[in-house]
């Protein structure tokens, strides 16, 4: 029995290492490419290394900092939109029965399975109508359409699992709707809200088309900056931008893990 458990543990460790390598290995050539303009096959390492791409990234025309700023502002606005719209909508969908519930659910999740081009065309129309809005807000609205289904799908199950019994109990103890949400539901939903928020921010950070369409190409977020370089085949610059782009994702992941650890200090 003990031998079997040890073998199982070893197998698990092997697959964990394999998975880590699978995820980590692509970053090595990316890092190398960001320091060279040429790396022809079959050379193991490039002949000449330089920090030119990184230098360009942080120059005025590289816009690494402003691009990151714009991306983060839009992602935060998108997240706020998701929290404001997604939580009450999911609560209603998960816990209440009403006529047409399935249709509403399908509409809310439709961006997940409707072809992207259809959504984008609709978004283009929306952008024309919302031209008077601040570009950050109009881009965040576009991202909201893309990210809301992911947010809803992430927290829906937790709401469903919670059911209404615990609300009834809180209500019998004198809690009103707000206190039920704030003191009972929100703490129980926190892990899934955190995961949903992480997903929303990461998806928002990587949006190119909705950003470009909703702002008419005026709001330069990181994907909008990277795209022309990627299409021009500048591997070194694209690698540097990709690594730079990975920084906020890494930071978000770390914040998520810290928050999860902090909120789970109570072992319930």
């Amino acid at each position: 029995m003990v031998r079997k458990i040890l073998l199982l543990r070893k197998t698990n460790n092997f697959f964990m290492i394999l998975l880590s390598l699978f995820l980590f290995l692509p970053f090595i050539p990316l890092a190398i490419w960001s320091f060279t303009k040429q790396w022809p096959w079959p050379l193991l390492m490039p002949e000449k290394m330089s920090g030119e791409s990184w230098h360009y990234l942080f120059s005025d025309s590289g816009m690494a900092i402003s691009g990151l700023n714009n991306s983060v502002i839009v992602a935060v606005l998108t997240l706020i939109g998701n929290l404001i719209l997604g939580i009450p909508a999911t609560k209603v969908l998960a816990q209440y029965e009403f006529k047409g519930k399935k249709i509403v659910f399908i509409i809310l999740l439709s961006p997940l399975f409707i072809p992207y081009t259809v959504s984008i065309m609709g978004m283009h129309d929306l952008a024309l109508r919302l031209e008077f809005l601040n570009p950050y807000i109009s881009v965040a609205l576009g991202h909201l359409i893309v990210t809301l289904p992911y947010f809803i799908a992430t927290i829906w199950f937790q709401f469903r699992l919670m059911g209404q019994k615990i609300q009834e109990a809180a209500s019998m103890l004198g809690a009103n709707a707000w206190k039920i949400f704030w003191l009972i539901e929100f703490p129980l939903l926190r892990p899934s809200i955190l995961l949903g928020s992480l997903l929303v921010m990461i998806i928002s950070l990587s949006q190119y088309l909705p950003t470009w369409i909703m702002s008419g190409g005026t709001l330069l977020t990181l994907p909008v900056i990277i795209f022309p370089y990627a299409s021009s085949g500048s591997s070194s610059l694209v690698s540097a931008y990709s690594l730079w782009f990975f920084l906020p994702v890494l930071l978000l992941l770390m914040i998520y893990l810290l928050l999860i650890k902090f909120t789970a200090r109570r072992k319930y």
Partner: protein
Amino acid sequence: MHLKQIHIHYQEANIITGFELHIQPGEIFVLMGPSGSGKTTLLKGIAGLVPIASGELCWENGIGTVGMVFQEPRLFPHLTVLENIAFALRVKGVPRKERTEQASQFLKIMQLDGLEDRYPHQISGGQQQRVSLGRTLIQKPDLLLLDEPFASLDTPLRLELIDWLYHFQRENRFSIIWVTHFLDEAFSVADRIGIMIAGSLQQTGRPAELYQKPFSEKIAAFLSLPNRFTREQWQKYFQCDLTSLPTKERGWIPANSLKFIDKRLILETRKEENPIGFISGIVTKIIPGNGGFSVIVKSGDCLLEINSMEWNTIPGLNKEVTIKIPFERIIWYHQ
């Protein structure tokens, strides 16, 4: 509290129809009834968790407070035992220090001291239900609604909690509407018992009255009263016309009123003043219990239950027996 003509609908079905009830201060009213009869819906209606379609719920002295304990503890898993108990005070806005003090005192009353920092999953089912009771009782409700709160506990624990709650209620004199399907629980605590069938109250009365005067066969069947037969069936057993005697359409006789008798003594016994019936049958089952033995006898299509305290008077399985039925012990009721 007075419930006047309460109607509760769910979708298009009438769950509660014309429910009338008056609960006295400090009274324990036990509500019983078959599954699906609407007991939980009624409690939820009183608690305000489901809307009342029509009717009136009024209190004699202004507005009363209601607390409810559910069948499952429904504790908040992210709060400790102490925080769960203090929850009602927290939503009322009682300062932290004060509510912690009050909740700590309540923990002692609830015999939960030492568990204040545990989370619900770290305590037993019985302790969880105690916490559930505690967090409701800390509100000092005028009326406590209990929806089978001890149904999932094992018998000793259930009896212990019933006894504790009964004494707590007698000391604090709040009213209780107590839903249970355990007859022993109901009869051990009730000031009055109400039997609810298909959304309306069929009979209310003191516990003994229900046995002595069941309103109908439905109620007698719900109470599982043994040896229930129609008057015609009893007439067959007594071999005489019972219509001239004070009888009703149906009658039941307690299992301990029936006695096994030697067949040879039948003629002698018939000389007694009151009519006496005799039934012959075969012993099909012997059930030992804490009050003696229950012997099930099959006579024709009917089953009879006879209680006996002593093992040596119990006939063996599949033995043919004769049972003596004293007429005066039969409790008559309407169909």
